[in-house]
């Protein structure tokens, strides 16, 4: 009987964990450790392929359980010059909105592979981020990089994600939706970056996502971040010139570590002339990540969005609680609950979401 109860308890825990949601390198990890993005990622602005240190961190420091000889397991290096990696996320979601039947589905959220070819050490390289599934192959990032991404200036040319605010795992966060700069919207152009001591800075000239089909216009984006061991601040700005209407954005973001909790905050303001008469929009994020113990993280987020500053009573908020469990190297389980609050006449703005995610990475 006791064994049955134990089995049921284990099953219940597994079910809860399998309902969990995602995790790969997230900015809260960098904040908790006092690292800059380029400490763990090949891309100096974060996300995507992990470098040698990032992979070691993922093998030894991140998981709850250390595996024997973990350090000697997958290194990502196919040759001295070629490093590869990837992320696979499969999830289950259940969405409930007022006056609508609930919807639930298992889905392959994404399978992405990364490759970085060093042509001249610390000088010249080529980076590729390719989404393999779902919906067939799709290039996310592909650029040539010249210069040092660890100390000094570098230049990137090709297709890449723009630097603006916290590079969150959750691409549906209000701050990432409102700015339109997230890891689903790469852009084509050139980036000049600077990395030195506590400073990181980028200056980008790109087509602009809203100009993708028009063949005219451009977007200028810039970001500066100052990083200290237990805090950091950043400022970002972007301006898009487009036939559809110009768009200007500014954002401030900051992080602070207080004991086992890492706090992330971001506030963005957007003025968009593609709306008739122009519109000013705002979004804010506050996230707390509590590292309960090694391999266990509890994430709480509160978000705010005002889709038109000149209109009263149209604001939206969103609250999430997500538990992240990394039992072993290269495997993470996440489960969470998210509640949207918006105007009562719009069902989609008042939906609730339960999500679970299985995340494998290498």
């Amino acid at each position, binding site marked *: 009987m006791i064994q049955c109860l134990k089995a049921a308890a284990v099953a219940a825990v597994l079910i809860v964990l399998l309902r969990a949601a995602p995790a790969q390198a997230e900015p809260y990890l960098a904040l908790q450790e006092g690292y800059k993005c380029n400490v763990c990622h090949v891309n100096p602005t974060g996300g995507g392929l992990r470098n040698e240190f990032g992979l070691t961190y993922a093998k030894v420091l991140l998981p709850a359980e250390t595996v024997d000889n973990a350090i000697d397991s997958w290194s990502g290096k196919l040759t001295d010059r070629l490093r590869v990696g990837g992320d696979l996320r499969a999830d289950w979601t259940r969405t409930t*909105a007022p*006056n*609508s039947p609930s919807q639930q589905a298992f889905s392959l959220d994404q399978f992405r592979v990364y490759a970085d070819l060093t042509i001249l050490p610390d000088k010249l390289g080529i980076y590729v981020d390719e989404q393999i599934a779902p919906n067939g192959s799709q290039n996310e990032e592909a650029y040539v990089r010249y210069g040092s991404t660890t100390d000094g200036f570098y230049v990137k040319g090709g297709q890449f994600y723009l630097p603006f605010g916290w590079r969150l795992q959750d*691409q*549906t966060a209000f701050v990432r*939706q409102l700015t*339109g700069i*997230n890891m*689903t*919207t790469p852009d084509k152009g050139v980036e000049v970056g600077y990395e030195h001591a506590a400073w990181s800075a980028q200056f980008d000239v790109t087509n602009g996502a809203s100009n993708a*089909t*028009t*063949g*005219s216009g451009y977007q200028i984006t810039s970001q500066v971040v100052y990083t200290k061991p237990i*805090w950091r*601040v950043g400022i970002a700005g972007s301006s898009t010139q487009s*036939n*559809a209407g110009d768009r200007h954005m500014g954002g*401030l973001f*900051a992080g*602070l570590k207080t004991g086992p909790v890492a*706090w992330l*905050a*971001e*506030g963005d303001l957007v003025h968009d002339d*593609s*709306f008739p008469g122009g519109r000013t929009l705002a979004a*804010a*994020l*506050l996230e707390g990540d509590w590292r309960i113990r090694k391999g266990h993280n509890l994430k709480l987020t*509160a*978000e*705010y969005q005002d*889709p*038109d500053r000149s*209109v*009263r*009573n*149209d*604001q*939206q*908020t969103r609250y999430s609680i997500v538990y992240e469990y990394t039992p072993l190297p290269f495997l993470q389980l996440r489960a969470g609950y998210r509640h949207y*609050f*918006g*105007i*009562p*006449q*719009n*069902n*989609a*703005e008042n939906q609730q979401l339960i999500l679970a995610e299985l995340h494998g990475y290498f």
Partner: protein
Amino acid sequence: MRPRIIFTCLRSGIAACALMIAACAGNGEGLDANGRPLMPGGDMSLPLSDDFESLQENIFTPICSVCHVGASAPMGLRLDAANSYNLLVDVPSTEVPSILRVKPGDPDNSYIIQKLEGHAAVGAQMPFGCPTSQPCLPASTIAFVRQWIMNGAPPAAASGVNAPLSITSVVPGDKEMVPTAPPQVMVAFNHELDVSQLATYSMHIEKLGAGGAALRLDRVQARIAVSDANLRALMIWPSRPLTSGRYRVVMDAGASAHFSDIAGQTVAAGIPDELGEPVISTFDVEVHP
């Protein structure tokens, strides 16, 4: 001392963020379902229904025409109130020309439904970016679009029936620069046309040379058609994609007699060119490789 100041600033910033977020969501008072202010004097907006006017006001105008408007409208599909019906009903989609954007009576084989529901063979689900950067249309909303198509995709109730026959819209419009070759030129009228009076030479497209005053004109091979499902729009379909250059849409000399409504009214429009033929629209195509 300095770190203390920084901590104080950081804490203040985070506290300010927390305070802003702690604000409640809007109560929606005085707003429509899209979060836009109701018309002064009360709720003048139409409730969502399977009527085209309602679909235009609740879906196409507030959601779709944010992108699908003007010379840069994706796929040349303009979904503003002046053009959406004429560019949707019985018009082949640009992405999959074998499928009509709206096939009256057949929602499953209407491209707009496939795009809204996210199972079209080409391209992304609409509205663009959903569900990541904006919510997808709920199934209950798409159901009204389906029902409208099932009903035969009728136009909005006619207005100005007693007004003289006139051209209400031309796409591409006069003096517009379009960044991609338009799949068709559309000329919309305020009344249904008497198609028995139309001839293949009633209207045509000319490409203008780069000679300034001494223009060299090339007539673009094209066919003209008026769909039985929408007798208010005349379409000119170039047989080959228009290349970069300046074009004009011209009504043939004496062709005004061919543009009449069923009441026999004829249309007078355009500015006569050097041959005395009325020019309906002059536009530029600037195709980027």
